[in-house]
């Protein structure tokens, strides 16, 4: 037993030594965190690839900071989309002395990890976490290049109000923080636009039978129904609504803005409206799309353009401040105003992206397809937006 313990100690010591050996020199570590295992591993890998591409391009460009050529080392970690693992790997990155982090993918892992980065003074930019709380904690080190959920509600509501011109709208939510939050924003925006909103109806995130609620609403003849919740409950809701003969437009937030809606609601899903924070990958810069395809032999899935921009922002801030020290380049990062592959990027005081884009989708032939982009309160039709 004693021998075994000594053996383990020796191995641990050896690993620690190897770990030390990697530090120093002109190497600068940039971390990335996303789920690389589990149900959304494909999205995690997509995020990682975006950031990896940016780092590799920076290395190929032989960037000089403070007169020395810098070699960026990309450290990719797996948080399994699990908040507990998220904090563990965040600590691991802090201990490894990374100078900046791109990630995490989920709001649920980003929020608990953010105080660790803040304490260590390491800037972290998420390319996909949309929960407003992330940047509401007052951490100077926290940024995101994607829109917030509370910008999404106003976007879908104003699109609905201007394009479908409903007189009466019913708003339903699933009594979760996400569902209630987005439904409140939608209701506020609709009321401001002079649309009358029926008293809020509620389900839960496990409701399968919406008929009681929908029957009640049918009696009040709404022109549109907005549901704040996920596709698993939104699909049955829309199917049952059509079965009851409700002809209103059904609108959803990003939780129910998936192709799965077509499977869950069948033919009834056709024509739904929904919104997502950010832009579909097709809208990203063409050069980026080609480079990504060449490097990874696949097309980006969802947020890779955003993580690519996030990693580039870290590098550009270092160049601007002429330092790789997080304390020195952090102020430069907060003041950057550049054109990324997802459009112009500048941060507000909270670290949120100014004028983040929101995209409106509709269901066509079993797939959600983009129909409009909303940026800074202005709506552009999708066809025109892509042309630009």
């Amino acid at each position, binding site marked *: 037993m004693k021998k075994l313990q000594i053996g383990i100690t020796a191995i641990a010591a050896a690993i620690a030594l190897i770990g030390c050996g990697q530090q120093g020199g002109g190497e600068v570590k940039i971390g990335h965190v996303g789920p690389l295992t589990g*149900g959304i591993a494909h999205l995690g890998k997509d995020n990682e690839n975006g950031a990896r591409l940016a780092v590799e391009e920076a290395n190929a460009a032989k960037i000089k900071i403070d007169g020395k050529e810098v070699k960026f080392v990309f450290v990719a970690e797996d948080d399994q989309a699990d908040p507990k693992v998220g904090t563990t790997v965040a600590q691991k990155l802090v201990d490894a002395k990374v100078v900046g982090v791109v990630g995490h993918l989920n709001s649920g892992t980003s929020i608990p990890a953010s105080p660790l980065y803040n304490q260590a003074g390491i800037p972290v930019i998420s390319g996909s976490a949309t929960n407003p709380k992330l940047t509401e904690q007052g951490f100077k080190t926290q940024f995101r290049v994607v829109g917030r959920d509370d910008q999404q509600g106003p976007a879908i509501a104003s699109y609905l109000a201007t394009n479908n011109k409903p007189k009466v709208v019913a708003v339903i939510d699933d009594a979760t923080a996400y569902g209630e939050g987005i439904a409140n924003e939608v209701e506020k925006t609709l009321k401001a636009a002079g649309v009358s909103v029926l*008293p809020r*109806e509620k*389900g839960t995130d496990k409701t399968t039978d919406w*008929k*009681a609620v929908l*029957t*009640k609403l049918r009696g009040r003849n709404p022109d549109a129904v907005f549901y704040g919740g996920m596709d698993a409950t939104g699909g049955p809701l829309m199917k049952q609504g059509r*079965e009851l003969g409700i002809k209103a437009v059904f609108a959803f937030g990003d939780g129910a803005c998936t192709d799965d809606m077509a499977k869950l609601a*069948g033919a009834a899903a056709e024509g739904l409206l929904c919104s997502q924070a950010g832009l579909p990958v097709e809208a990203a810069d063409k050069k980026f799309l080609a480079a990504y395809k060449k490097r990874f032999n696949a097309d980006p899935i969802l947020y890779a353009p955003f993580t690519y921009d996030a990693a580039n922002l870290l590098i550009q801030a270092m160049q601007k401040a002429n330092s790789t020290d997080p304390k020195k380049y952090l102020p430069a990062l907060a003041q950057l105003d550049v054109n990324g592959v997802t459009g112009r990027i500048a941060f507000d005081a909270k670290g949120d992206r100014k004028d983040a884009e929101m995209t409106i989708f509709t269901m066509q032939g079993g797939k959600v397809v983009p129909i409009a982009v909303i940026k800074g309160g202005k709506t552009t039709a999708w066809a025109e937006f892509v042309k630009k």
Partner: protein
Amino acid sequence: MDTFLQQLVNGLTAGSVYAVVALGYTMVYGIIQLINFAHGEVVMIGAMVAFTIINLLVPAGLPPLVIVLIGTGCAVPICMLVGYGMERLAYRPLRHAPRLAPLITAIGVSIILQHVALMIWSRNILAFPQIIPSRTYFVAGAAITTVQIAILAICLALMAGLAILVYRTPLGTAMRATAQNPQVAGLMGIDINRVIAVTFVIGAGLGAVAGVLFGTYYGIAQYTMGSILGLKAFCAAVLGGIGNIPGAMLGGVLLGVIEALGAGYIGDLSDLCRWGVPLQACEGGGHFILFGSNYQDVFAFLVLIFVLVLRPQGLLGERVGDRS
């Protein structure tokens, strides 16, 4: 009026599915005084098996109705096997143990079945293939779909079939005899082990059909769907009088209707502004709603509590002395 009628139609459809599931609870309770909490999981497995078979057959290009029938035809024997298996392995060895032991075993079996389903069918919500073309008819302003009509008809047929089996056949007589007194039934030459096993198998078969109906109606299936459905059906069985077969049918349908009407009207009735409570939120035609329709699932349990307090033997049940 058409809103009320519609809620009634919704409630009857959901209620008839509850009734078929409740039969499984009440038959088993009637015969061995065991609340088989794993019955909800049998319903779930029925839906899942049908889901898999239907998905496999869709590319074959058979008529939709035939595919669903084959799916159900596979789900029923598999669920019967599960029902027989749990009786044989989990409950029979405990037949003479204190009543708490099989009850806790039932909860254990339920957890095991749920996790087996989790391993086979994943934790995702599955979209139950909606291949039967559903048409909506309007009767006096209330919409009713072909699927709803089919559910009502199938549930009615199953209940009638079970009633005939129990009250008009030798097997049914043996079941009722075993329910009254297993020892004496045994002395009269009835193989009570066989009768109890058959009861489980029939209950599981009914559960499988209910699972397919549930999946077709709502368009979704998930490994956790059995627990809430099972609990509601259990409430329905208690409402009608547990152990009483017509009671389970009545209880299921009643519970469905209570739920639909409750969820449909609780919002309006708990609107404080409607009752003239002077609140700031009420000004200018505002609303202050205490309980929304998300309390839908609560009604089943409210009913359970009221029944247990006011009429523990249920609507159709008779007060019986504790036999043990």
